[in-house]
C-alpha cells in the first residue's frame, strides 16, 4: 500500500506531517507517531511492516500496534489518500 502520488502534497513540520489534498482541499495533520507510518506509506509498504515499525519504535504490544495501524489506514482510505485502497480494505479484513 502507498499514499496517492498525484495531487497529494505534504510537509514535515516539527516531527509532524501536514498534508493537503489538492483535489478536495482536505487537509490532514499527522502526529509524530503517525508521521513514522507516513514515511513508510509514502514509499510503499505493507500492513505488517507498519505494525512492526510501531512495535519496534514505541515498544507497543502487536495487538495494540495493529489497532493503531488499522485506525490510521481507515482514516487515510476514507479520505481517499491511498493509491490502492482496495488492498488496504482486504488487508484489514
Amino acid at each position, binding site marked *: 500500500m502507498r499514499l496517492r502520488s498525484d*495531487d497529494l*502534497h*505534504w*510537509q*514535515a*513540520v*516539527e516531527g*509532524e506531517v*501536514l498534508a*493537503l489534498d*489538492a483535489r478536495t*482541499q482536505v*487537509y490532514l*495533520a499527522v*502526529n509524530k507517531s503517525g508521521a513514522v507510518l507516513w514515511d513508510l506509506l509514502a514509499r510503499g509498504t505493507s500492513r505488517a511492516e507498519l505494525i512492526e515499525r510501531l512495535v519496534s519504535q514505541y515498544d507497543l504490544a502487536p495487538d495494540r500496534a495493529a489497532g493503531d495501524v488499522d485506525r490510521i489506514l481507515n482514516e487515510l482510505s476514507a479520505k481517499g489518500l491511498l493509491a490502492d485502497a482496495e488492498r488496504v480494505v482486504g488487508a484489514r479484513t
Partner: protein
Amino acid sequence: MTLGVYGLDVTGLPKAERWMRTLPASAPRLRVEKTDSATTSTQDSRLNRTEADLRLLGGGRLRMRRGDGRAVFTFAELPGDDDVLHPYLAPAAALAQLWAGNEALHSGAFATPAGAVALLAEKEGGKSTMLAWLSAEHRIAVLSDDLVVLRRGSVLSGPRCLDLRRAGDLGLLDVEAAHVVRNRDRRRITLPDAPAQAPLIGTAVLRWDRRMRLEAVAPADRLRELLPHRMYRHRVSGDPRAILKAAALPMVILARPRGEAGLRNAATALTDYFS
C-alpha cells in the same frame, strides 16, 4: 526594467503608475483593458483552469484566459486607473499568478529585515489599519494590503497604497496625505517604497478580543488558518507546496481590543515577535 505590481509587468493603467514599482524586464506582462457597458452582466462567476469570467464586488466583470496576458474589465461606470489598480487588479493578478503555478492569498504582508510576514484577518478584521500603523509608526515596509502572491517562497510587492474605511480607522492615524476614494467610502494612503519581494518568514492571524494576547499556533492548526484565505482554492490549483511551506513557518494569533491602545500594543508585540 519595467513597472508593475504583484510581480507582473502591468500595462494599460498609465495614470496609476505612481502606485507601481520597478520590476525586472523579465516580469510576465499583464495588459489591463477596461471598457464601459451600460448592461454589465450579472451572471454568476465562472472560473476554471483556463478561463475566468468573474463578477466583481461593487459591480463590473473581469474576463481572462490563461496564457493570454490580458485582464479585460467591464464596468457600468468606468473607474479611474488608480481604482482599477487597487482594488480591482487583485483578482486579475491572483489568477495570472495562480495559472502560472504560484500561490495567492487574500492577505496583507509587511517586511521586516528578516523577511515578509503575512497578515491574515477576516473581513473588517483590522488588517489594513494594522498595516497603515506599522508603516506610519514603525517605519515598516508594507508589501501588500489585499493580496499576497507567493512565488518560490517569497511575497511579491503590491500597489504602493492602501485604503482605510472612513468610519473607525481614520481617527487612529495621521492621514493628512490621504484622499477620498471608492465613492467616498474610503481614504487612500500612499505607502513608501518596499522591496519587490521578500522571503516569507511567518504569518500572523488578527482577531478582535477584549484583551491582547499573542499565541503561537501549533503546526497541526496552521492549515486551518491558512486555507480559507487561499484565493479561488476550489477551482484553481495554484501551488499547494507553497501553502505547506508557509504552514511550516512560525504562525501567531494576535488578538487585541479595538481602539488605539489595542492597535499600538498589538503592533509592538507583532514587530517584537518577528524581529
